[in-house]
Structures are given as structure tokens and as C-alpha cells.
């Protein structure tokens, strides 16, 4: 079902289970209003996030990817977010040369209690992605998608 | 025998553009990295044919015209039914439309006969291949400028060989002398730009003779290779020494006009998916890796033994002597470490020779 123009974009959030997933839960429990574009994928730790998850998502047409985990020194597994920090910085260098706007990817740290920080992160990141609009599609697939829409309509 | 025709060199583009209206036309075009076969689209065929390159061998063969690098065999889709069961619909996706392949060299056209013996044989007719083969007219151009890695004359071919072609274009000073070889070929040549040229057949014959003389002489006649290569099967020391520098990457198989091995994989997205046939490569570890983890060809020496074995021994012994190599030399020119198949097969033949006399007097 192609995303309708301007209504909602596809943003994926890879969240570490111990802190950021808790933070997002706190924001939800606290009824902090947030845009609904972000779809959350829970992982044990940011150290488990393979930068290829993010490249695969962006190449498959995701418009934005957010990674969020425990603040440095708070990692449940002590060092997961330290490794992740280096990997995510290196990934930030790969996206632009591939032709993907680096603003479509962000990583940050949100602890389980920071419900309002999570609300700010989601609001600002979603606005940032809406500023960029939908991600560029591969030409061949774009025509296939167009045909799929046509097939669905006829 | 159909009459010999002639066409001006400058009119080729117009003829291809007109044919593009009824056929999908492929032709060798020069781009920034070399000469490759491209599809001419009807509207800007005129612009594309500016880059037409008929005097140089294309770096990639026209193999994907008959065996696409990736082809959908079947489309399938699951659907949930009210009663909770799942229905499954499977539809084959057959190739459509007529094709004109213009400008391959006789070696590339001859490669199609290598496919025919396997894909269109008694054992099992491949419907996708046979549909494409029947719909494709092959208009080859006599090869007047061989590369230094060419050796078609050492594997039973020639720069003016007609096997696998529907039409043969012979380049002469002002254009091409055109010999239709099949009905399909004749049909495509019914175009005002072609004029009668029976009187110029002599001229064409001279060009072909000169072309044959220009082919670099190979170290041996490889049509005698099947027995010696088979005899060398257990000589692992030989295969290890000739593949010491090989990277086992398989680029040679992707650029080889006669390599026809393929893989079948299902790729799905949710409830829908496709069964794909893609080019495969016997130099990769995964080619014969079994579910149990056993691999009968674990090292590059084992795999290269099969690559040489297949082309110069197994295939000829199955198909009464026909080698499955056409001597185009692309595996030599495209190899990152310049493995030279001529030298390797020749040294295999010599090594088997000097091995047999010993066995003889044992």
C-alpha cells in the first residue's frame, strides 16, 4: 500500500530494550503526544544493531531511521553502546557517498525514565524527515510500484 | 540459397531503428568502459546507434539475450481463505516478443549452439529458452579484428563461422555484404536499404580468408583435449599448481558466452514472491555445497578442474565431440590475474601425453 504523499512517512526506530524502549514506554504511559510515523523495532542492545540493518532499511525505501539506546556508561551489557557509537559514526560516513542524505539517519541515547526526552526526539526527528520528504526510489522499482498501483486501481 | 545482399555502413542505423518497431533489438554499443550489448529502444534508436561498434569484440557476451542474468520462472501468491486454509496460486511467466540480436561475432553465435544441445535436447526442453531462441534472429558480423586472447580456430570455430547465426554480415570497404542463412534471417532483411549483391560474393570470401589468417595461433588444437583432460582428473598436483594464482572469483564464468549453469531461488515479500533463475558459477564454494555441509569441490583446484573438465572433456564426450568453449578469450582478458585457459589446457594435454607412454610400458 504506497504511502500517501505528505500524510505519513516510514520511519524506523531501532531501540535498545533496557533504556530507550523503556523511555518510549514511559512517554506512552505519560500520554506524551508524538507523530505516528515512527515504527519501533526492539533489540537487546544498540551493540546488537548491525549498521547493515539501517542500510537495508534505507535501500528498501524507508524514509528515516533512528537508533536509540542507553546513555554511555549505563549500558545493561556495559559496552554495547560504546561499540555502537563507533559503528553508527562510521555508518554516517557511508550514507552520503551512497547518495542517501545523512539527515535521514540519527542515533541518540534515551534512558527509561526520559519520557519527555523521547517525545522531543521523535517530534524533531519526524519533522526533520518530513522536511526531506520521501526517500529516492530506484527507478526500475518506481515504475514497478507505479504499475502495482495501476494494477490495484484497474 | 537466398540471394546475397549489400547494405551501406551508414544505413545500418536506419535499418536497426525500423526493425526496433517490430523487434527488440540488441546491438554492441561503445560506452565509457568499452563495448557491451545494449537494447535499442524504438524512439531513440537513431541516437543510440551513433555509438554502434562493429569492429571490436564486445567485452560482455550477448548471452543474456537467451539466458538472462535473472529471469522470473514462476510467480506465486498465498491467500488466506475464510475457512482458515491458505490457497496458493502459481503462474509461469513466459518470455514474449521477437528479438533481433545484431552484431555478435561468430564465436558468440556459435555459443548458442552449445546451449541448444543442453536446453533444447531430448532430456528436457527448457520452455523459456526454446521460446526465446525461436523468437531471436541472430545477425552476426565476420570478425576481422581478433583480440590477442582469441583462439576460435583452435576449438573448431572460425571468424566467419556461420553456426548459430541466421544472417552473416561481412564488412567490406563501403558497407556489409549480407548472407541470409535461414528463413528467419531472410524475413528481417526485407528492407529497401538492402540491395542485390550476388556479384560481390568473391569480395566477401577474400575478407573472410584474411580474417581467418589474422587469428592468433593457439598452442594446440583443443578438439583433441577431451581424453587427456579426463586422464588428468586425479592429478591434483597439476590442478593445484595451475590454480595457485586463481582467485576463484568466477568472473570468467559471467563473461563466458558458453557458461550456462544457473541457480533457482525463491524470493518472496510477504505473501507474494517469485521463483528466479539466475546465472550461477561453478567457481564458487556454494555451487556444490550440500545440506549436510559436505562439499565435493572444496578448493579452487577442484572447482577449476570441473570448469576445464566440463568445457574440454565432459561436454564433448556427452555431445559427440563438440567442445563447449568457442575461443572468444574473454575469460583471459577479464581475469583479474590473467589465468590463460589456452596455456592451461595445452599443458594438461602435454602432461597427459607424457603420462600415457609410461602407463603404456608398465
Amino acid at each position, binding site marked *: 500500500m504506497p504511502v500517501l504523499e505528505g500524510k505519513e512517512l516510514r520511519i524506523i526506530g531501532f531501540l535498545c530494550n533496557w533504556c530507550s524502549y523503556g523511555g518510549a514506554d514511559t512517554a506512552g504511559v505519560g500520554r506524551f503526544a508524538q507523530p505516528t510515523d515512527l515504527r519501533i523495532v526492539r533489540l537487546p542492545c544498540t551493540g546488537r544493531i548491525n549498521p547493515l540493518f539501517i542500510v537495508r532499511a534505507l535501500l528498501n525505501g524507508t524514509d528515516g531511521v533512528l537508533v536509540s539506546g542507553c546513555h554511555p556508561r549505563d549500558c545493561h551489557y556495559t559496552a554495547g553502546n560504546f561499540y555502537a557509537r563507533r559503528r553508527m559514526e562510521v555508518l554516517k560516513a557511508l550514507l552520503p557517498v551512497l547518495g542517501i542524505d545523512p539527515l535521514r539517519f540519527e542515533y541518540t541515547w534515551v534512558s527509561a525514565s526520559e519520557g519527555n526526552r523521547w517525545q522531543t526526539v521523535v517530534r524533531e526527528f519526524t519533522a526533520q524527515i518530513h522536511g526531506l520528504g520521501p526517500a529516492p526510489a530506484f527507478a526500475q522499482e518506481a515504475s514497478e510500484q507505479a504499475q502495482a498501483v495501476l494494477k490495484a486501481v484497474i | 540459397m537466398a540471394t546475397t545482399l549489400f547494405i551501406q555502413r551508414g544505413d545500418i542505423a536506419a535499418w536497426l531503428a525500423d526493425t526496433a518497431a517490430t523487434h527488440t533489438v540488441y546491438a554492441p554499443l561503445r560506452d565509457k568502459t568499452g563495448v557491451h550489448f545494449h537494447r535499442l529502444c524504438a524512439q531513440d534508436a537513431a541516437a543510440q546507434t551513433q555509438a554502434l561498434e562493429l569492429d571490436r569484440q564486445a567485452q560482455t557476451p550477448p548471452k543474456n539475450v537467451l539466458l538472462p542474468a535473472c529471469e522470473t520462472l514462476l510467480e506465486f501468491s498465498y491467500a488466506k481463505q475464510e475457512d482458515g486454509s491458505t490457497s496458493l496460486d502459481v503462474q509461469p511467466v513466459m518470455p514474449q516478443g521477437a528479438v533481433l540480436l545484431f552484431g555478435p561475432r561468430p564465436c558468440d553465435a556459435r555459443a548458442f549452439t552449445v546451449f541448444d544441445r543442453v536446453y533444447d535436447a531430448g532430456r*528436457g526442453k527448457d520452455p523459456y529458452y526454446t521460446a526465446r531462441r525461436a523468437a531471436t534472429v541472430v545477425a552476426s558480423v565476420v570478425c576481422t579484428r581478433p583480440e590477442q586472447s582469441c583462439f576460435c580456430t583452435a576449438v573448431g570455430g572460425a571468424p566467419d563461422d556461420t553456426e548459430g547465426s541466421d544472417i552473416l554480415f561481412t564488412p567490406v570497404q563501403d558497407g556489409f555484404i549480407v548472407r541470409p542463412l535461414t528463413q528467419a534471417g531472410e524475413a528481417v532483411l526485407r528492407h529497401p536499404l538492402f540491395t542485390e549483391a550476388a556479384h560481390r560474393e568473391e569480395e566477401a570470401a577474400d575478407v573472410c580468408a584474411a580474417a581467418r589468417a589474422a587469428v592468433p595461433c593457439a598452442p594446440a588444437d583443443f578438439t583433441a583435449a577431451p581424453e587427456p583432460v579426463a586422464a588428468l582428473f586425479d592429478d591434483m598436483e597439476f590442478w593445484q599448481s595451475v590454480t595457485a594464482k586463481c582467485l576463484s572469483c568466477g568472473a570468467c564464468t559471467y563473461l563466458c558466452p558458453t557458461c550456462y549453469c544457473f541457480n533457482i531461488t525463491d524470493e518472496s515479500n510477504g505473501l507474494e514472491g517469485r521463483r528466479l533463475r539466475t546465472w550461477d558459477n561453478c567457481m564458487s564454494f556454494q555451487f556444490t555445497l550440500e545440506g549436510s555441509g559436505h562439499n565435493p569441490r572444496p578448493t579452487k583446484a577442484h572447482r577449476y578442474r570441473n570448469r576445464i573438465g566440463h568445457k574440454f572433456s565432459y561436454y564433448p564426450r556427452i555431445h559427440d565431440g563438440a567442445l563447449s568453449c568457442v575461443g572468444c578469450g574473454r575469460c583471459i582478458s577479464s581475469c583479474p590475474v590473467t589465468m590463460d585457459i589456452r596455456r592451461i589446457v595445452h599443458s594438461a594435454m602435454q602432461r597427459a601425453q607424457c603420462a600415457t607412454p609410461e602407463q603404456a610400458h608398465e
Partner: protein
Amino acid sequence: MNSPQDNLYLPYMATIQEVVTETPAIKTFRVRLNDPAAMDNFQFEPGQVGQLSVFGAGESTFVINSPPTRKEYLQFSVMKVGELTGKLHSLRAGDQIGVRAPLGNAFPYRQMQGKDIVFIGGGIGMAPLRTLLLYMLDNRGDYGKITLLYGARSPADMAFSYELPQWLERDDMHTVLTVDNPADEWPHRVGLIPNILKEMNPSPQNAVAVTCGPPIMIKFTIQALHELGFADEQIITTLEKRMKCGVGICGRCNIGTEYVCQDGPVFSYAQLKKLPNEL
């Protein structure tokens, strides 16, 4: 082009009638082709194989281990080793699969007529033997003495356990079961198949041995058969190779000039010895 007869890559659509859990790692699937006409005149010979399709995962080759004489369903036994076998093991009765069959050659059951037959199966290797054994039992008069030696690692690893009691009781067949490590009150033999075979000492006179199982078992079983006086032509086995097309085109399963999917998977040991040493 959309019928399996004229498109050799298009499977027959089939429905799983019944799934039998033979052992923790082996399940048996009884399937019927959806098209009744195709099911009724589906012809095959014992030993021929089929490619089962689980669309989305792919295809893999399994022997049709029900005999041609029993037409109610086609039976395939699958050991779980990889992606496709894993998906197959998750299917239930009523699910749809694809069947591309029959492929490959069959056991030389005509030449075996009038001879004594010695079956030696190891683990899932019993599947290819089962189709030939049941075919022979359904044409019992055509064959001489039938001996079955079936071994597995442990009793829990024995497939077709529901048929073993009948095979043991039949008076026109001599069955021996053995395991490497027995569970308590295991009444049958204990020991490796080749050793038990030598004890049974079957006579090679006018006899044919058919053996399937893991490569290590085959190697020592063939040695044992040679010690017992069986000639290479009297030993039949089946080969397992990675396969894709199943019709001798895709170039993957060759041993020298022989394509295991077409010229096999059934080979006599004499034929195997002539092939290049690349098993």
C-alpha cells in the same frame, strides 16, 4: 506453457494429506496432486525422486518412498537439515506444496527379478529402500529371498517404526534391526551395520545388495559386501548431490559426464567406480 507436462519447472500443485513424525528429525509427508487426472495417471518407478517446492523457501530433492503399486498418495520422508526442510517440517495436513516428479532413474527392479535381495539401510537411507521393498512385497513371487538390515543411531532415530513389526513377523522376509546405542528393553541387535551384516553372512549367489545411508556407513557396508563375495555389479546404491533443475540442464550435480539427477541417483557400485573420484 502452464501445465507441468510442457513446462518442466512448473510443479504439480499438491495437498498434504497426512504428516507422520517418524523421529524428532524426520517427518513423512503423504501428498495427493490436486488435479485428480494427474494423480490417477501419475506413473513412476521405485527409486525415482521428486523436487518438493515450498514456495518462498525453494525446492529440494526427495525420493518417492511409497511404491508405484500403492496409488492413494505419494510419500516423501524429510530429515530437517536446512531452510527448505525446516519449512517443510512446519507444514500441516491441508497445506499446499509443489511436486516436480518423477525425476531421475529407478532401481533396476526388472533385472533383479528372480534374485535374492539384501537391503541395508541406515537412518533416513531407509526411505529409498522402502519404495523398492514394498514394490517387491507387492510382487513377492518375482523375487527370491528378501533380507532387510536396518540400522540407526538409537531406537528413537528409527523411521517407519510402525511398519517394522510387520516386516519382522513376515515369513517371506528376514528382517534384522540394529542400533549403535540402545535404549532400555531394546529387543533387537546392537552394533554397527557393517559388523552385523558380516554376522548375517548373506550369500552373494544370485543376489543383489541395495544400500543407502550416510556416506561413512556406505563406505564400510560396501567393504563388508566385498568381503562377503558380492561383486561390484551386485551392489546398488543412490547418491545425494545438491540439485536445482533436476533435469540435467543447470550443470550442478555432475560427476564427470554423469548428471546425478538424470543418470542417477541410482547407480551400481560398478558404475560408480568408473566415474571420476568426486563423490
